């Protein structure tokens, strides 16, 4: 069920301005604190990908593509121009192909 939990975190950050701000200011601290309040647990791979805002890895691990792009833009576009972000996201996604995103 951890793929579900990884998606739940992405969804949570994507839907809330406050969560988005806190996560951007301290990704690792925010992920670890959030996970404590959850009954389910992330795998170490999933946790590291979330702590590093590593959208390429999250995509490869089966994050839902629709929400993942929205999340990626929300948590990176203040640091990376959107065109560059789109290009890099697509390159990383292309390497992973089409992972199963069913939870």
């Amino acid at each position, binding site marked *: 069920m951890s793929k*579900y939990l990884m*998606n*739940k975190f992405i*969804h949570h950050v*994507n*839907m*809330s*301005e406050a969560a988005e701000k806190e996560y951007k200011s301290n990704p690792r601290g925010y992920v670890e604190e959030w996970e404590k309040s959850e009954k389910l647990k992330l795998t170490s791979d999933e946790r590291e990908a979330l702590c590093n805002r590593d959208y390429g890895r999250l*995509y490869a691990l089966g994050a*839902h*593509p*629709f*929400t*993942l*792009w*929205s999340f990626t*833009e*929300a948590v990176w576009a203040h640091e990376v121009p959107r065109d560059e972000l*789109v290009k890099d*996201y*697509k*390159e990383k*996604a*292309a390497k992973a*192909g*089409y992972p199963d*995103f*069913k*939870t």
Partner: protein
Amino acid sequence: MAEIVSIIGITHNPFMPRLFKQANRPPGCAKIIERIDMMREKLAQAKPDVLVTIGNDHLHQFFMDNMPAFMIGKMDTYDGTFYDEIREFGLPTHHVPGDVELSDALMEGAFDKGVDFAYSNELTIDHSITVPLMFVRPEMDLPIVPILTNCIAPPLPRPKRFYEVGQAIRAVIENLQTNKRIAILVSGHLSLEVGGPKQFERRLMDPNFDASAVGWIAQGDVNGAVNHCSFDQLKQSGNMTHGFLNFIMMMGVAKATRPSYAEGLDAGFPAIPFFSWDAKEGVAR
């Protein structure tokens, strides 16, 4: 007896409203706006009292902790939209009136037709409902009954079931003891990719699928549609092509009759769907 006075199928592309306002908008926008204007006029001419709006929540209100296959909103006012859609797409918020009486009647009637809708008394609508309204009824003055499908979080209901649910909606409406003039506004996609390696490409994702899909609707070819639209088949045409399933439900509402208008517009974007069944051509029969 209630009458279905119009069925319209249209895009819910959430980037379009902002794009249309840009001074340097891509040249293809003019054609899209022309089609939208045509659909808005068709809806106005049908003089509906209420809109049944069929779309799909995009992991906003519903998430994988609690994912209904098909659900009906039961509220007298709906808020749209969500924080992320305001941030990403620049979409405005809305308050849209609802028709609770019709929501209840559809819900109860569908049980008797073998369709068990989930329901919500606290539903916020996302771009799949608000964007089509912005396009064809920007006044947002008509009460709506939102019907949402799961075509985004697999496992998905089967294509045949989308068709059957559409048939049930039609049958229930035709048996309602009301004089309301009811229009059906459906939104969905043709081939489309979001969040994958081909996202944001300004071209038809899969021209062959788009042509086939428009053909199934234009010809009322239910077998063609339901036999080519499994989850795995649709993802070959783009990872979010599953939004086409809403249009299979639309075929059910239309009893697979031939539409007055059917097009997958190539305007330099992924194909933009436009479908209509106009009252003068027999939508009520």
